[in-house]
């Protein structure tokens, strides 16, 4: 599950992520990070599901970090999409690929909403709402 973590000025200097990893033993991966003295925003991939995931999100919330799950990150208009593949190799997280019949496939779990594919699409079939 890809999650955006937003740190307020009050918690931005605390090692919240490290504490959660130590507490749960789940190897959370940082995909994107924008951190300064005022604010922090991380996009992380949490390799967990169900109760474990909810528990991890709970730890972040307790520490004062706002969590937001990425769902419906990309909207691909398959009426417009020609399955050309122009978005596939530029995707940094390999969230886009071909199925066996060469139709474009999207793996939401892997997407970090970086918008690279939005620009790469020649027919404007991809949007990030």
């Amino acid at each position, binding site marked *: 599950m890809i999650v955006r973590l937003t740190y307020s000025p009050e918690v931005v200097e605390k090692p919240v992520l490290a504490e959660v990893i130590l507490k749960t033993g789940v190897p959370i991966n940082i995909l994107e990070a924008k951190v300064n003295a005022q604010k922090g925003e991380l996009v992380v991939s949490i390799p967990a599901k169900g109760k474990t995931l909810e528990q991890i999100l709970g730890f972040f919330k307790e520490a004062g970090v706002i969590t937001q799950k990425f769902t419906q990150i990309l909207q691909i208009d398959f009426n417009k999409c*020609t*399955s*050309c*593949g*122009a978005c596939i190799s530029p995707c940094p997280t*390999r969230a886009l690929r*071909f199925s066996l019949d060469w139709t474009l496939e999207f793996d939401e779990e892997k997407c970090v909403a970086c918008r690279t594919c939005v620009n790469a699409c020649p027919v404007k079939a991809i949007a990030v709402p």
Partner: protein
Amino acid sequence: MLVNNILTNYIIEYMEEFYSTRYLKRIGKLSHTSNIFTCLPILDGQKILEVNILSESGKTETIRTIDEINEKIRKGDAVVLTAEEMIRLVESSGVDVAAKEVDVVTSGTFGAMCSSGVFLNFGHSDPPIKMTQCWLNDVPVYKGIAAVDGYLGATVLSETLGFEYGGGHVIEDLVSGKEIQLRAESYGTDCYPRRHIETTITIDDLNQAMLLNPRNCYQRYDAATNSTDRVLYTYMGTLLPNYGNITFSGAGQLNPLCKDPNYETLGIGTRIFLGGGIGYIIGEGTQHNPITGFGTLMVKGDLKQMSSRFLRGSSFYRYGVSLYVGVGIPIPILNEKIASTTAVKDENIFVSVKDYGIPSRPDLRPSVKKVSYADLRSGKVEIKGKGVPSSSLSSYKMAVEISEVLKKWIQDGRFLLTAPVEKLPKQSVVKPLEIRKKEPKVSEIMRTNVITANPDDDVKEIAKKLVEKGIDHLPVVDGARKLEGIVTSWDLARALASDKKRLEEIMTKKVITVFQNESIDVVARKMAKHNISGVPVVDKENHVIGIVTTDDISKKLVGGRTTI
């Protein structure tokens, strides 16, 4: 080895026949699968260094004629296979059986084809106008022809929307039946008094809308990658830094010209699938380069019959607009040799991976690797020991669909084959454009007495040096004059304010540099792009040999002409 020698001799004979001995220096890598073999001869002369010509065996005795095939099509008896199906049949039953059984193989391709456009006739208004300038949805139409004729090219940008909308999009909107804003200007004449017109049109209002594409259907196309440390936005799509990805274009084993690489059935008058309607090959395309296996087609067809499923306006981010065109061509299986070429697979069609990080003309871009379409389509290609993701820009899925639609048309008796009036030329050479007017180069305006500093130098001392010499840019070099960084007067002002001591702490380490043989034009664009006012000139080993600043350029070049 013996088999290889026989094949080599065969290819040499074959190639001497078609490509004349002066091109042929020696045969390179050779491989063969079933009855098809591929060779990579190294050619010299005409500046062609590496070439990939598809050759094939197979008997050339006529099995059937086009008239006989058409007779079968009329009766509904013709055996038609898509190129994918033909590949499978030849693999399972052999080329001799396939040649006997199959009458027609259908090919297809769907990719961005920039050399496309449409001739339009708007009809006369009352009072009439001799349109000298014309726009459709703010996209300029070429008006250097008769009063109400125009040519709308696929790559023209909208004057109001820029990269978002252009000629290709207008063509798609026309085909979709959408209403289009027409605006035109004129100087007014006795016979054409009107000077301005503004109205709306749809494709039904036009007398003619003729898709006429000077270059479509490239036989194959070199793939693209990027060695630099920044993202490149090109007509080959988004290219990530440090060989971050590979993009490629072309239908490979479905491409029409790859299915008949000897152009035995293709030429002027060949009836084809074009944009969802019926079209014709009207000759070889521009930059047709059969010697190197990069043939192209010029095609035309009635836009009014076409469909926006197979004609799509497109925008390449920070590059421009184009048109995705669907082309499908039936290949009549007249003999065993043609049957064998229609079964050529992605594994046997090779292209180079070119480095778009070097901003040279296409044939001078360094080739990083030779790969097959099968390698490219596998999604990963190894470059410098690293698995690099590769993906297409043209749609293989749509290419398959086109080959299937064309197959259906033929099976239904709606599409008859034609013999070309004249076959595509097999010998023509693509020449580069020579620049005959003298163009100022970096070496002519750079200053060679460059003042440099060392990483360990004291910030204050260096600030003093800059003021004394009246310069703004100071390359930082090591003992061997290799470039390590650069500091500007602005960096120094900031350093002094923040109390930093050593130059190394404040210098910019990622330096934009130029070579002395680059043209000033390119360097000026580089500086504007990176918003900098000076660049060190380095040699291949990154030694500083000069410096160029915007001041040098503006002082020494007046009105684009060098005064030195």
